[in-house]
C-alpha cells in the first residue's frame, strides 16, 4: 500500500515537473526585451541608500532609452541627479498602448508613480485630474520657460495647472520646392491655389497633395484645419464637440463642404482613403506627390539620408492654406501637445518630483536639445537655441510656430473618450468617401458625443 502511494506521488511529481519544464527555460531573459516592457533602475538608483536619499518612480511611454526622446529623458534625469545627489530615479517604460493600460491600473490601485508622462488632451487628462491623482503645479514657476500660448492651458483644468507639456505638434503643408518650380506653381496660400495646382500637376501625372486615410486621424485633422479657417476661433469646434452641438453650426458645415471640394477637385491622391501613413509619406519622399499634409514632427525629413537627395534638399513647409471668403488666417494653428509630465498628488516626495519635472523641461536643457537634435518641437520659444546651421525645413517650421496667433490646444478627435476617437475618425473617413453627407456627418458626430458622454 505504501509502495502504491509512493508510486502515485512520484508519477504526479514527474507530471508536474514535465509540465513546468514546458515553460520558459530562461525566465530571466524574458525581461530583457526592451520593446515590450520594463523596469529599469538607473545606475544612480543602484547605489547604497543614504539616510536622506529619495527614490522617485518615473513612468515613461518611450521604451527606447538609447536614442531620441528616451535618451533625452535619461540625460535630463541624470543631470538632475548630478545636481541633487540624494535623489535617485527608478524608471519604468512601456510602449504607448500598454502604457495607457498600466497607467489606468495605477489609477485604480491608487498607486501612481511619483512622476509620469501625461497626455494633455481631455480624454486622457480629465480622469487623472478628477481622480485627484495629479498634483497642482504653480504656473508662476514657469513664467520664464517661454511656453507658447496655449501650451500650459492644455494641461490646465478649472484654472489649475496639472502638468507641463513637452511636445508641440501642429499641422503643416510640406511641399517639394523643385516640383512646384518646375511646373510654374507658387507655394499654395489658399485652397483655391491647391485646386489650381492640382489641375496642373494631375495633368502631368503628379499627385498634388498626399494624405493618409487608412490611418484615419490625419484626415480628421486636415478637416479640422478647414473648419478652423471658417470659424477663426480655435475653441469653437472643440467646444461644440464637448456639447454635441456641431450640427447646429453653419460654419462647421462650411468647413466640411470645403474638405469635400478639395476631394472633388482631386487635390488628394486617388487612393488616399486606403493609403496608410507609410504609403502617403512615400509618395511625397519619392517625388510622386508635390505636397504632403502631416504634423510638424516630420521635420526630420529634411535631414533624413534615406530620402533621395534630390527630394530631401527640396522639402519645405508652409502654413496650412487659408480659404478664400473664410475669415480664418494661416496663423491660426491646429496644434496640440503630444505629451507632457505630471506629478503625483499623493507622492511622499512631491516637492522633489516637481523639482525634477521642472528641471527636465528647463528650456536650456529640453528646448535646446530637442531642437538641435531634431527630436521634437519644444512647446516653448527656442529662438535662442538656433545654431544658424538649420536646414530650410527647420527654418520653415520655426517660422510657422513663431508666427502663430492662436492654437486649438487639442484636436477634436481627442476631446472625449477613446471610443469617441475611434468612432469619429471612422465617421470622418465615411464622410470624405461620400458615404455620408456633410450634414449627416455633423449630426452623427453629435450622436457619437452623446454616446461618449453617456459612457
Amino acid at each position, binding site marked *: 500500500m505504501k509502495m502504491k502511494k509512493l508510486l502515485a506521488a512520484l508519477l504526479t511529481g514527474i507530471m508536474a515537473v514535465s509540465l513546468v519544464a514546458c515553460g520558459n527555460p530562461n525566465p530571466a531573459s524574458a525581461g530583457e526585451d526592451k520593446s515590450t516592457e520594463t523596469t529599469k533602475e538607473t545606475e544612480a538608483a543602484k547605489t547604497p541608500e543614504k539616510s536622506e536619499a529619495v527614490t522617485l518612480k518615473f513612468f515613461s511611454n518611450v521604451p527606447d532609452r538609447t536614442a531620441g526622446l528616451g535618451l533625452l529623458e535619461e540625460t535630463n534625469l541624470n543631470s538632475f541627479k548630478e545636481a541633487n545627489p540624494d535623489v535617485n530615479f527608478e524608471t519604468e517604460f512601456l510602449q504607448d498602448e500598454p502604457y495607457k493600460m498600466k497607467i489606468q491600473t495605477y489609477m*485604480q490601485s491608487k498607486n501612481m508613480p511619483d512622476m509620469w508622462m501625461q497626455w494633455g488632451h481631455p480624454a486622457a487628462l480629465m480622469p487623472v485630474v478628477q481622480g485627484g491623482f495629479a498634483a497642482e503645479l504653480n504656473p508662476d514657476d514657469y513664467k520664464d520657460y517661454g511656453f507658447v500660448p496655449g501650451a500650459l492651458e492644455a494641461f490646465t483644468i478649472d484654472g489649475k495647472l496639472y502638468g507641463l507639456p513637452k511636445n508641440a505638434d501642429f499641422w503643416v503643408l510640406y511641399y517639394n520646392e523643385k516640383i512646384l518650380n518646375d511646373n510654374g506653381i507658387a507655394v499654395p496660400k489658399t485652397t483655391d491655389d491647391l485646386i489650381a495646382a492640382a489641375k496642373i500637376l494631375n495633368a502631368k501625372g503628379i499627385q498634388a497633395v498626399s494624405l493618409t486615410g487608412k490611418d484615419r486621424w490625419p484626415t480628421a485633422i486636415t478637416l479640422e484645419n478647414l473648419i478652423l479657417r471658417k470659424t477663426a476661433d480655435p475653441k469653437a469646434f472643440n467646444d461644440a464637440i464637448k456639447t454635441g452641438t456641431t450640427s447646429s453650426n453653419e460654419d462647421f458645415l462650411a468647413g466640411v463642404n470645403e474638405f469635400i471640394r478639395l476631394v472633388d477637385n482631386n487635390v488628394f491622391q486617388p487612393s488616399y482613403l*486606403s493609403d496608410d501613413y507609410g504609403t502617403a509619406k512615400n509618395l511625397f519622399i519619392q517625388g510622386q506627390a508635390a505636397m504632403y499634409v502631416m504634423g510638424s514632427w516630420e521635420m526630420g525629413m529634411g535631414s533624413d539620408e534615406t530620402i533621395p537627395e534630390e527630394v530631401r534638399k527640396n522639402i519645405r513647409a508652409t502654413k496650412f492654406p487659408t480659404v478664400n471668403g473664410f475669415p480664418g488666417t494661416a496663423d491660426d494653428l491646429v496644434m496640440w501637445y503630444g505629451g507632457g509630465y505630471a506629478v503625483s498628488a499623493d507622492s511622499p516626495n512631491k516637492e522633489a518630483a516637481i523639482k525634477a519635472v521642472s528641471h527636465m523641461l528647463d528650456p536650456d536643457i529640453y528646448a535646446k536639445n530637442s531642437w538641435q537634435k531634431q527630436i521634437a518641437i519644444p512647446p516653448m520659444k527656442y529662438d535662442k537655441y538656433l545654431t544658424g546651421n538649420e536646414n530650410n525645413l527647420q527654418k520653415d517650421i520655426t517660422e510657422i510656430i513663431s508666427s502663430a496667433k492662436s492654437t486649438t490646444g487639442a484636436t477634436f478627435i481627442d476631446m472625449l473618450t477613446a471610443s469617441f476617437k475611434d468612432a469619429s475618425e471612422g465617421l470622418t473617413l465615411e464622410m470624405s468617401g461620400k458615404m455620408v453627407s456633410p450634414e449627416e456627418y455633423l449630426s452623427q458626430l453629435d450622436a457619437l458625443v452623446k454616446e461618449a458622454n453617456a459612457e
Partner: protein
Amino acid sequence: MDKVLGNKKTIFLLVLPGILVMIAGVLFPILMSGYLSLTSMQGGGAAKFVGLQNYIKIFTKDKTFWVSIVHAIILGFSYMLFQHPICMGFALLLDKMGGKAEKVFRVLFFIPCVISIMVTSKMWVNILNPTFGVFNKVLTAIGMEGLARNWLSDPNTVFISVLFIIMWQGFGYGMLIYYAGVKGISGDVNEACQIDGATGFRKFFSVTLPLLMPVVKVNVTLGMISALKQMETVFLITDGGPGDRSQFIANYLYQQAFRAFKYGYANAIAVVFVVICLVVTVIYNKVIVVEDL
C-alpha cells in the same frame, strides 16, 4: 504498476495538472469573457456591471456588427460558389496534365499559400493602388480604362476586391486538398468508366464528384471556418473600411477592444459571435453531414 495506474485516485492525481491548466487557460477565460460582456469595462478600470445592455446594443443598434456577419456569410458562400469549383477544376486539370508540368504547376499554384499573408496582402494593395498600381495601368493599356477605379477606396468595389484577394490567397490550399482527393480516386474506376463509355461531364458528375464528396465536405468546412474568423487580410488591406464596407467580425471585435477600449462590449461581441458559429455548425451538420451528400 498496473494496480497503481488502475487506481482512481492515481488517475485523478495524474490528470489533475492537465485539468488545472485547462481550467486556468481555457475555462476561466471563457467564463471571464462571459462576465465581462455584462460590464462596461474600458481597459484597466473597474468592471461596472451593466446587465444585458451590451447585448441589447448589439441586437438593436450596432449596424456594423450585422454588416460584418453578412460579409462573413457572403465570403463563405463565395468560397463554395466560386473558389471551390475553380480549385476543383484546376485539380482535375493538373491530374490530367501529368509529367513534369503537373509538378511545376502544383508548386506554382501553392506558392501564394507559402508566402506570408502580410506580404501577399501588401502586394495586392500595391497592385490595386490607383496612383501607381499595375492593375489599372494594364486596364488602360488594353483599352479598358473605363473600368479603372479606386478598387480599395471606392465603397462600391472595396468588398468585392477584398473577397477576390482572400479567395486568391486560399486558392492553393483548396486546390491542393481537391488534388489529393482526385489522386485518391483509383485508376480502376477510371478504367471502368472508359469501358462503360462514360466521359466528360457524365463521368465528372456520376463518378468523380461523388467520390470527391468527402473532400468537398472538408473544404466547405475549412472555408466556413476561414470566412467566419477572417481577420488578417482585412486588417492589412482596408481595416474594414471605408466605413464598414469591408468589415469582418473578428476585425471589428479587435477594433472595439483595442482601439475603442470597449472591453466589455468587445466581449459581448465575442459571445454572440461564438453562438453564431455554433448555430452555423449545427446547420452545417444538418445539411451536409446528416444528408451525407
